[in-house]
């Protein structure tokens, strides 16, 4: 806004004249900026053409090692040949339509939930979508009923696994984090202490230590004869970890609700839970939508850590594909670039959307 207020009347003249004025102002304003501009152009010329030549011009898509050996550029054939291994991991080959469908449904629910924040028509469907969607995804992934063959979850992998771990992590961490945030705001000293200690301890240690704890210590916690598998343990670790971060996000929202709103609830003789549900939380949660999306993004990136405890998420399957044949091993740049591109697309678009939401949600307050 301040930019608009300051900008001079629209420049006139031919396109060339305007271009010259613009570049004088934005590129060659003084000797220092001129040096910076020339340096930047030199850097771009040094970096971009070889990259384009390597990645597009001289690259090959043919899924064979022979054509990759001949090509002087990138070997996208590695990705092409191993696409299904990279996307779905070791899930039985003939059944891979199931994780694909599950992934599409999950992405649809995530997009729907994000869209529901903006469009009231979709908003009332958010909870039903998850309640119906999650069991469908479970049925698709595990099978065992409706004529679907049973697939052990040690065979799950790839992008569906990454999406499941992060979104289920955030969904289940949501109520837990909310309780922790309320506990931290509580007047009851014991409950407050327990919440603060939990939040601060979890936030003070790296995710990988929580995952190690989940994979090594959880089996010891359980009574004799009861076991839970590695995937579930990692999922629980992720939920416990995310809850502490979400709790701090929610606390920010709760603190932003004016004191008078709590008092208004009291003066209407609403109980604690009634005034939370009807007055405080609707306002607080609205404020924390963008940071919650950001937590989901960082959770989505951090899910890659399950590689370290031996699960094959999307990054894990790329490594698996690289190791699948010694001939492919040297095409790690292509493999990692592909994974990075997918992660980037998902994270970047969600981050942009969250920034947009932040602006939209603030509109009501600006007059």
């Amino acid at each position: 806004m301040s930019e608009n207020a300051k900008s001079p009347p629209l420049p006139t003249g031919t396109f060339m004249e305007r271009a010259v004025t613009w570049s004088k102002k934005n590129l060659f304003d003084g000797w220092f900026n001129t040096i910076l501009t020339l340096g930047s152009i030199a850097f771009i010329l040094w970096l971009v053409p070889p990259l384009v030549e390597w990645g597009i011009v001289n690259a090959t898509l043919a899924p064979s090692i022979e054509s990759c050996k001949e090509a002087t550029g990138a070997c996208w054939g590695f990705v092409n040949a191993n696409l299904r291994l990279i996307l779905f991991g070791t899930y039985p080959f003939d059944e891979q339509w199931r994780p694909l469908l599950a992934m599409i449904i999950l992405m649809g629910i995530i997009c729907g939930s994000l869209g529901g924040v903006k469009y009231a028509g979709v908003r009332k469907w958010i909870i039903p979508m998850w309640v119906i969607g999650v069991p469908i995804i479970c049925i698709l992934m595990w099978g065992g009923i409706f004529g679907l063959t049973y697939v052990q979850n040690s065979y799950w992998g790839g992008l569906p696994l990454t999406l499941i771990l992060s979104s289920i992590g955030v969904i289940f961490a949501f109520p837990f984090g909310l309780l922790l945030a309320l506990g931290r705001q509580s007047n009851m000293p014991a409950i407050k202490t327990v919440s603060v200690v939990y939040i601060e301890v979890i936030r003070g240690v790296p995710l990988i230590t929580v995952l190690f704890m989940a994979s090594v210590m959880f089996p010891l916690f359980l009574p004799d004869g009861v076991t839970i598998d590695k995937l579930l343990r990692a999922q629980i670790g992720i939920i416990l970890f995310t809850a502490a971060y979400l709790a701090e996000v929610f606390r920010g929202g709760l603190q932003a609700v004016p004191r008078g709103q709590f008092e208004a609830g009291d003066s209407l003789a609403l109980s604690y839970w009634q005034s939370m549900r009807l007055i405080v939380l609707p306002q607080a949660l609205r404020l924390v939508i963008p940071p919650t999306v950001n937590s989901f993004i960082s959770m989505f990136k951090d899910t890659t850590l399950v590689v370290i405890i031996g699960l094959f998420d999307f990054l894990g399957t790329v490594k698996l594909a690289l190791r699948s044949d010694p001939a492919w091993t040297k095409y790690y740049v292509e493999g990692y670039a592909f994974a990075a591109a997918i992660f980037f697309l998902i994270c970047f678009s969600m981050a942009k959307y969250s920034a947009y939401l932040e602006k939209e949600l603030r509109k009501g307050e600006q007059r």
Partner: protein
Amino acid sequence: MSKPQNVPGNVRSKGLVDYLNDENVRAVLYQIVAIGLIILAGWYLVSNTLYNLEQQNISTGYGFLDLEASFEISETMIDYSAKSDYATALLVGLLNTVKVSFLGIVLCTIIGIIFGIARLSSNWIVRKLATVYVETFRNIPVLLQLFFWYALIPGAFPHPRDALEPLPGVLLTSRGMYLPVPMADTAFTMMGIAAVIACVVIYFVKKWAKKRQDATGQPFPMFLAGLGIFVGLVLLAYLAGGAPTDMSMPELKGFNIRGGYNISPEFMAVLIGLTVYTSTYVAEVVRSGIQAVPNGQWEAADSLGIRRTVALRKVILPQSMRVAIPPLTNQYLNLTKNSSLAVAVGYPDLVSVSNTTMNQTGQAIEAISIFMSIYLGLSLLTSLFMNWFNKKMALVER
């Protein structure tokens, strides 16, 4: 007018239901129930754990720390061999974590400040380049970046036989980077002492300069004077110590390079990955910190006739620091915590060494409790330091 309700005569005796409806009584009850449930759950888990450990014949306790570790660690900052005990091994891991985190924090701050300022540049192309850098590297998982750098370094550099030598004495090979280092000499100890003395002298000169400026208004070129005192004293110590010039140069002997200081590919991968990833967050912190200072502050400085460079240093930066310090602390903590990903590329950090210890001894709970409490301690220390710093920088109001 109705009769006031709270006259003593109106209070009837309280029944059990009244007590249960009393907010304070309820609060106590809720807390007792909550604590009871937590204790019950804790007791259940502990008893299960003790039973399971007994079944597996694992003895509990930290006694294993005195046992011989019998594994090698590739990078150590203190004396360590396979004959050392587990406690020493864990200390080596901790020092490696501290080393990579400290260097990472210094580097990501420098790079982050450069890109943060570049994103606000009036130069269109510089602004766009900085945006591309920040948006690209913050949206790719840091573990993926570590794997990438770790795969790239051995792949991109030649075997030690045909090492690249970009600067005389600096060798780049698939086994990492080799730097020449001066041979140990008493002169360096003297230089260290001189540096400490210089810092003390600078402290007193600064005190004097501030006193004088407060009294007379005369400024004192503190930066130049401080630099002069520091460099002068250290140089003097070097000359007094006989000006040793012997260097340990990295050289190819047999199949490997000996001498010099080796920076391993693992260390480089972790350092580059953490630095690049965190610097994008630091850049955003710096940018919002600068943007948070109202334009009026620049104009106020202008109207007082303060030069622009001085205004940046004395008016703008102190105010943006105040906004930037809390999120910056968070980023430093994140970097320290993310350094635990070193375990994925085989850099022997705390988690990596603990992991080996855990696998060898089976003392999972003890090993995990050790590294968790060390990370907690590091986090708390950083928070304490930053809180102190924050308080020092905070606006002093009436």
